[in-house]
């Protein structure tokens, strides 16, 4: 009996150790999925497509965000010159406004930052009418935080977004963190552009 008792204790102990190892492994795997340097806040909404995405300043980061959404099988429509009327009757649930400017791109595209910000305001007004969720995204990092044009694009978008998804490196002065705090909206920071895929996967529940 004593031997049986010992075996029983050992078995229970082994089972507990095995369970603990499994829990540790599972948590390790779960943790390993979160890319290094990414902050995932607790109060994130659960989003669903389809998604409309545009750029406020003609920076090409929307192509990168759009490609990552496509890889996640989220229905997405990208348009550099998306207008308010394009949001009508399409059933879009989310609007992504990509921050940052391209001086060469804007001038050669026949637009300027004033017209881009006016387009942003009209898009936001229509998105609000339709109950869309608005994400302010900055995927290109420091390359799009170099001058007053970038700052105006950042300010225009961060002032209206419901969530900020940015590269950590552009928050060196805590501008984005402070806006998120003041407006009480969640902010996700990633180290690399590719890490946006994980963050978008969390937001759209497709990781």
């Amino acid at each position, binding site marked *: 009996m004593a031997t049986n008792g010992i075996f029983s204790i050992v078995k229970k102990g082994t089972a507990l150790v095995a369970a603990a190892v499994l829990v540790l492994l599972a948590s390790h795997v779960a943790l390993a999925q979160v890319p290094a340097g990414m902050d995932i806040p607790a109060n994130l909404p659960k989003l669903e497509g389809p998604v409309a995405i545009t750029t406020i300043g003609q920076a090409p980061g929307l192509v990168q965000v759009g490609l990552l959404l496509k890889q996640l099988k989220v229905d997405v429509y990208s348009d550099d010159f998306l207008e308010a009327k394009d949001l009508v009757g399409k059933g879009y649930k989310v609007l992504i406004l990509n921050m940052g400017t391209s001086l060469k791109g804007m001038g050669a*595209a026949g637009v300027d930052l004033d017209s881009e910000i006016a387009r942003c305001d009209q898009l936001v007004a229509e998105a609000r009418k339709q109950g869309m969720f608005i994400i302010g995204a900055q995927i290109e990092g420091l390359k799009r935080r170099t001058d007053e044009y970038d700052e105006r694009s950042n300010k225009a978008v961060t002032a209206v977004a419901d969530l900020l998804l940015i590269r950590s490196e552009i928050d060196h002065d805590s501008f984005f963190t402070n806006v998120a705090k003041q407006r009480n909206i969640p902010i996700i920071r990633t180290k690399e552009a590719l890490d946006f895929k994980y963050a978008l996967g969390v937001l759209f529940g497709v990781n």
Partner: protein
Amino acid sequence: MAQPKRSQLTIRLVVVALWLALVIPGGIQLAAHRNYKETIVLGPGVTEVRKLSDWAPYIEGTTNDCNIYVLDSGVPGGTMLVIGGTHPEEPAGVLSAVTIVENVVPKVGKILVAVRANKSASTVTRPGDAYPQFYTIPTDFGDRKFRMGDRWSNPLDSWPDPEVYVHYPSGQMLAYMDVRNLNRTWPGRPDGMLTERTTRAFIDLINAENVDIFIDNHEAELEYSVISTIVAHQDAADIAAMASMMLSAMEFPMGMEYSPLLLHGLSHREVGDHTDALALEIEVPEPFLDRVRGITDEALLLEGKDEFVMRAGKAGLLYEKIDENGWHIDERVGRTNSTIKMIVEMYNEFYPDRQIQFEGLPTRDEVVAYGVGRYLLNPAQVGANRVVQD
């Protein structure tokens, strides 16, 4: 008519002698540069060397009838054209093209390379800006010497410039000298000025060879915002976006820019608009091109170190970082090569039916570790039929 006095004649003779003493050595140097033949060694992947005029007879007999190196795997697939030397004052683009010719072995599809896309621009520099005429790359077997050049074709080959350059066919007005700028004359015309004829010849080549992907190698000053980036025609934006993200995560920061829709004459705009090829341009940093630079010499061209450019960086005036390590030619060639490789990998993901596969292209870590000279072949160790001049 009164005869000049003896003393006046002596003065005149002295002045003429002094003038000749200045002009003759200078002229000899200019002629030596213009006529210098660069040696290119055909690597194991080169199957044929053709001339640009093979596709465009109207360029035959001109300075810009450059070599086109063909690396054909013999296995059906896609075709890529890489051009170096659009702006010969940007040597990383030239040397990147040379490393392709001398190292790459194609496995699927075909690769076409022009090392000197604007050969005329490589026969002139800017003496007034103290440009060196040549640069040399050290190798285990001695130095390999290359022509430094200018941004514009040699006026000896294309003259006179118009008062205003009206781009064909858009009608856009550009600076007069840009009629000699290979990156302002696309898509060109067969009866235009030399540089316009050259770009038209490349368009004819691209169409005749059904080129799938076109890459134009460049360097940029750190004062310019389009730097450390891939500029992509809208049809190639997906490839550039993925290549940018992959390179930035795995090797070094590399951005992307749209090819401006309304700015005409640039390769990434016009090749994309006038052919079926996906058009991209690569820009890596070259402090030599910055206007605030100090001593302008071969060391600056190759090592990319300059205290005045560094000061401009500290003052927040630059679009790319620079420190006391500068931007060495190895770093610049390596980044160009890594970017080409990543672009092709992404192209293969998006277009699996027209694959381009190759081996042997030295990427950034390898070129930085061993130096670009490691990837230049010794002409003395190959047969005479594997050495050409460009």
